[in-house]
């Protein structure tokens, strides 16, 4: 059950965050002022038409891309650079190809100066958690897409980040594996209560996973609507699909997205 905690200070707070890209052909306004609040432990999805800048917004929260305007704070402090407390998982499996599964998962702990023995033990625990026991010595090129994404998740989670930023993490994975990974992610989230910002283009995925969905408009993007996903937890990916409330929410998000894709939402 989602408990209402209106008093909790925001974990992530974006006010009027915008992004303008300078290119030889002129200035491109990608993000036109996004307001977003994520409270500790919330699972928030960001959906929007393709190319609307939802990934760019995630990169700004990560500290990889600088905002052109507005304020963005995490725990009340402005974001200036990447930090292991804000872990990120990308859509393509950007593992270190020269490291084994074990080496990838241990990487961050080595950067933190954790002794080798301890790194190994911790990494093993996380490898077991994402069900990759037995693949410790494999290189990324020997893994399937779903397995690579499990490694990426373990590599990020081992740093014990407060915030998990996920950039369409399951977008390039086949449908069956995707459901399995979504369910595992939910279990991990329910156990660790991390704050999650999850960018996706799938309405079903957003409904299954999130507490709230931010629907962005087409480029230059703004928040079109924020939708509370008041489906009871823990959720069952198959059972919720049949409920009337799911149907209502799905229609609502879908029609917003369709309108944005056609471009007739821009005038509102």
């Amino acid at each position, binding site marked *: 059950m989602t408990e209402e905690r209106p008093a909790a200070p925001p974990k992530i707070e974006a006010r009027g965050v915008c992004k303008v890209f300078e290119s030889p052909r002129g200035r491109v306004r990608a993000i036109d002022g996004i307001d977003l609040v994520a409270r500790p432990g919330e699972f928030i999805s960001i959906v929007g038409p393709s190319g609307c800048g939802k990934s760019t917004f995630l990169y700004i929260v990560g500290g*990889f891309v600088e905002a052109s305007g507005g304020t963005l704070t995490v725990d009340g402090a402005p974001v200036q*650079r990447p*930090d*292991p407390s804000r872990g990120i998982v*990308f859509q*393509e499996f*950007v593992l270190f190809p020269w490291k084994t599964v074990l080496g990838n998962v241990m990487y961050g702990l080595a950067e933190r100066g954790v002794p080798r023995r301890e790194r190994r033990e911790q990494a093993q625990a996380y490898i077991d958690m994402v069900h990759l026991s037995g693949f410790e010595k494999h290189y*990324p*090129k020997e893994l*399937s897409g779903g397995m690579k994404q499990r490694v990426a998740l373990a590599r990020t989670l081992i740093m014990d980040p407060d915030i998990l930023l996920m950039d369409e993490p399951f977008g390039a994975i086949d449908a069956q594996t995707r459901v399995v990974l979504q369910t595992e992610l939910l279990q991990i989230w329910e156990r660790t209560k991390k704050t999650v910002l999850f960018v996706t283009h799938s309405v079903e995925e957003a409904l299954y996973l999130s507490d709230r969905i931010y629907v962005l408009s087409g480029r230059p993007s703004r928040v079109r609507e924020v939708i509370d996903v008041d489906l009871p937890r823990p959720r069952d990916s198959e059972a919720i699909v049949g409920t009337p409330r799911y149907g209502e929410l799905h229609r609502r998000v879908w029609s917003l997205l369709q309108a944005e894709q056609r471009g007739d939402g821009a005038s509102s």
Partner: protein
Amino acid sequence: MAQAPDAGTPARLGSRLAASAPALVLPILSVAILLGLWQVAPRAGWVRATSIPPFSEVMTQVWALLGEPEFWTNLAGSAQRWAIGFALAIIVGVPLGTMMGRWRPLYRLVDPLLVVGYPVPKAALILLFVLWWGAGNASRIVIIVAGCLIPIVISSYHGAHGIEPRLLWSARGLGTGRVGSWFRVVLPAALPQILSGLRLGIAISIFTLLASELLIRGIGIGSFMFTALDNGQTLVVFAMATILAVIGFALDFLYMRAVRRWLPWLEGDV
């Protein structure tokens, strides 16, 4: 992306063997025909045996050469100069190229020099180097560096320039600083292309090494070969050329084997 899981079943193994039979036989066949012609043509009088001695006589001469201390001294000297020159080119070229790939001002500064320098036939520089530094080791090493530096710089540049930004972000997000990411992400991520550049560098540097020794004379395996030519010992020249060809082939082969063995994570060819 995923592994082929069923390559080991008997039916597949059989059909794979059948399919690979021409792949095994045909290359051997072409080499055998070439060597056969080399043996038969002088014997049959199609070519003069003084110009192209038969394969069997060349091999006998190779054997004789391998017993001569003078041959080994010259070969060792050349190999040493080559190793020093090649190492220098790596020490300068890889850091320079990768830094150019990550830092635009350095690229803009150095790139015009590469563009101008690339098509210059390096062998033509040998005489200039001799003019400046004499006919000793310095000129001979510098010409090897000159031969392979540019390919190494260019491949290192491309390797570092083409790195997926999110790979760097992943490392930065896991706590790696800017300097650390150069060693722990940029260098290994650029490695496949750096290794291709080195492979090219091996071939070019051996060429410039021999060219310099044929021109400067005095010492070295190229000079040893030229002396034989002067003395009209065609057979020795052929034997030397054969040995050098084998050395070149072996270096390339061993290089590829070493890369495969020590870098099992590499995808595709170097």
